[in-house]
C-alpha cells in the first residue's frame, strides 16, 4: 500500500504552541504496511518537501469562519530527528504565527479582516482544527484536533477551589465545577 502518513496533534502545556508530529513509523509488511520506507516512499527528504495545511474553525464575534492556511516558512518551526530524514518530524507552531496566517488569509478572502480578530494571539485559541501534511506528493488524511487547552485550565481552577469532601459547604460551586468538567469532556470528544 502507499505511504499512510499519520499525525498526532496537541498543544504545549502552556497553550502557546500547536504541535504536529509525524507518527507514521517505519514500514513493516505485517504491522505497519503504510510506514516509511520499504515499498513505500523513503523518508529521505528535506524540510522544503513538507507542506502543512491547517483548517481553523473559529468564531469572530458570533460569526463562524472556516479558514484554511498554508503555513509558510515551515523551516522555522520544524524539527527533524536527523538531517535529511523526515520520519518523526515535529512542528511546533507558535500561536501568533498561526493567528497571523489566519489574518492574512482572511484579508485575502474578505474585504477587510474583522476588527475583533486578534492576529497576534498569545495562546492557541480553543476551537476545532484540522491538519493535513504533504510530503513530496504524498498527502495525509486530515486529522481533527479539538483544542480545549485554555478552557481546561479554567475548569481546573474551578475544581481546585472546591472541597469535594466538605459536607457542610454550599454545594453550588462544586456542582458548577463538576458540570463544567462534564461539558469539557464532551468538547474533547466531538467529532
Amino acid at each position: 500500500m502507499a505511504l499512510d502518513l499519520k499525525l498526532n496533534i496537541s498543544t504545549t502545556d502552556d497553550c502557546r504552541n500547536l504541535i504536529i508530529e509525524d507518527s507514521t513509523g517505519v514500514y513493516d509488511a505485517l504491522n505497519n504496511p503504510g510506514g516509511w520506507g520499504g515499498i513505500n516512499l523513503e523518508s529521505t527528504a528535506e524540510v522544503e518537501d513538507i507542506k502543512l495545511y491547517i483548517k481553523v474553525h473559529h468564531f469572530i464575534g458570533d460569526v463562524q469562519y472556516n479558514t484554511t492556511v498554508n503555513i509558510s516558512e515551515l523551516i522555522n518551526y520544524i524539527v527533524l530527528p536527523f538531517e535529511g530524514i523526515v520520519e518523526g518530524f515535529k512542528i511546533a507552531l507558535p500561536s501568533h504565527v498561526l493567528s497571523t496566517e489566519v489574518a492574512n488569509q482572511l484579508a485575502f478572502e474578505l474585504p477587510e479582516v474583522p476588527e475583533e480578530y486578534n492576529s497576534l494571539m498569545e495562546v492557541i485559541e480553543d476551537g476545532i482544527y484540522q491538519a493535513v501534511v504533504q510530503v513530496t506528493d504524498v498527502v495525509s488524511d486530515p486529522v481533527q484536533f479539538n483544542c480545549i487547552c485554555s478552557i481546561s485550565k479554567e475548569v481546573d481552577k474551578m475544581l481546585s477551589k472546591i472541597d469535594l469532601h466538605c459536607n457542610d459547604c454550599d454545594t453550588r460551586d462544586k456542582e458548577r465545577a463538576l458540570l463544567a468538567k462534564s461539558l469539557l469532556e464532551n468538547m474533547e470528544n466531538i467529532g
Partner: protein
Amino acid sequence: MANADILSRHSCGFNLSLQKGSDENVGMGSIYNTFIESIVNNPDYPGTISSNPKVFPVVFHVFINGGVEIPDFDPEYILEHVNYNFLGSHISFETAKIDPDGNILATPGLNIVDGSTISEVRGEVGSNGTTTHTYVEDMVAVTENLSDAREVPGVTLNYLYTNYRWSIDNNERYLNVFVVNRLRAGSLIDGRDSSVYMSAEHPYVAEQLSETHKFNCAIEFATLGNCYYDKYGNIFTKGGPTDAVTNFGYDYLASNIKTNSPYNSYLFRGGDTGFFRQRGRSLVHCFGHMLGLTHPSTQLRELEKECAGDTNVFSDTLNNNTVYKDNISDTENVKFGEIGVDYNAWYTTNECSDDDNTVFTSASNHMTISQREGPPGVELGGPSTIFTAGQVLWMHANCEVEFYGESGFHPGILKEILIHSNDVIPTIINTDIEPCELIQARSTKNTAKEIGGADFKIVDDEVPIFRGLLNAIKKLKEHHQNG
C-alpha cells in the same frame, strides 16, 4: 408529602419520580436543568443532536397468571406502533435479542414471568405484623403506603423492579418495561380503587438515586391497547399502526379470586364502549418520560386543577401549591396534564389558552393526554399525536449527558444504554465481502494526490456544538466566581 397527593386521580405515576427527586435533593434545577439547557437552548444545536439516530433496546417483562393470558403477545408488533409515533424524531426502539446471560431470546424483547409464584412479605416484624401480598390476588402496588396509616395492597413495583429487571453486571443495557395485571395506587375519596395505569422514572432521578430508584417503566396490559378478544369472544383484527382496529395480544381472565371482581373492568379493556384505544400511546408516553420529558404542566396535588405558572418543574424543590411548566418552549399550558379525560373535554376546550385553535395541538401531545381518547368505535393514534420539536430535542439532549463524579467520567443512563446497545441488539455483520475486496478498498486510501484533493472533513455540525459547550463552561465559570 404523602404519596397519595401525587397519585390519586392521576393516570400516570411519573410525578412520583419527580417528587422523589425533590425529596432527596438530587438537584433537578441546579445541575440537571443547567446541563440540558446548555444543549437545548443553544440555537446551533437542534439540527445536530436531533439528527443523530438513537435506537434503544427494549425488553418487556410480561407477568402472566395473575388474571391475564397472552395468546399473541408480540413485542415487535407493539414497538411497531411505538416507533410509528416516534417517526421523524430519529429515536426508535428495537426488541432486545440477547438476555443478560448472553443467550439469544426465543422471542426478541420478551421475558415471560410466572406471576403465580410472586409474593412479597410487607410490614415490619414486631410492629403491626407482616402481611403477604401476592401478584395473583393483590396485584401490584405503585407505592407502599397511601398515607402513614393506610397501605396500598399488592406486590410493590419496587419489589418487581429489584427482582426482575434486567441489567448486565449492574450496568444499564435495556429499557425495562414491566407489563402487569394492574397497578394500584390506593383508594380514592369515593372509595374506588385508584389506578395509575402506567409509571415511569426520570433518567436523572434514577441516575442519582440508583440504589433505591430503578430506571424502569411499568404499564398495565389494558393500557397497551386493545385486548385480544372482544366482549363476545371474537378475536379483534390485528392491524398495523394505520389500520382501523387492532389487538395487542393479551386478555384478562374472568375475575380476581380475592375480590371476585374483574381485574380490570371491560371499560378499561378497549371494548366497544371502553376508553382505551390509544394503540401503544401510553407506552410512547412512558418512553417520553424515560427520555427526560415531563408532562407539559405538573400539579402534584389534585384538589383544584389550575394552569401552570412561570415556575419550571426542574426546580430543586417541588411543592403542593405550585403548578409547574415543563421548561420546553413549544408545548402548551394545559390543565389535567397528567390525567385522562374523555375526548370531548380535550377537543372542545383548553382553559389555559386564549387561542381556540391551540386546543387540538395541546390535546394531541404525547406527554399531555396519555390514557383515553377517541369516541366510541374509533381508535386514535399516529400522526395526529405529536412530540413537539422542543420535546424531541429535549429527549436527544438527555441521551448526550455525561457526568463527572469523584471517580471520573461516566455516561448518563441513556447514553450508557446507547453505547452498549450492540451487546443486546447485535448488528448483523455482512460477511459476503471477500477479504480481498477489503484489502483492495484499504490500499486505495492514501494514494498520492494534489492538496486540492486532500479534502478536509466537513465539521459544520460539530463546530457550533463545540462553541456552545465552550460558552456554557464560560457561563458556569462566571457564576462560580460570583457565587
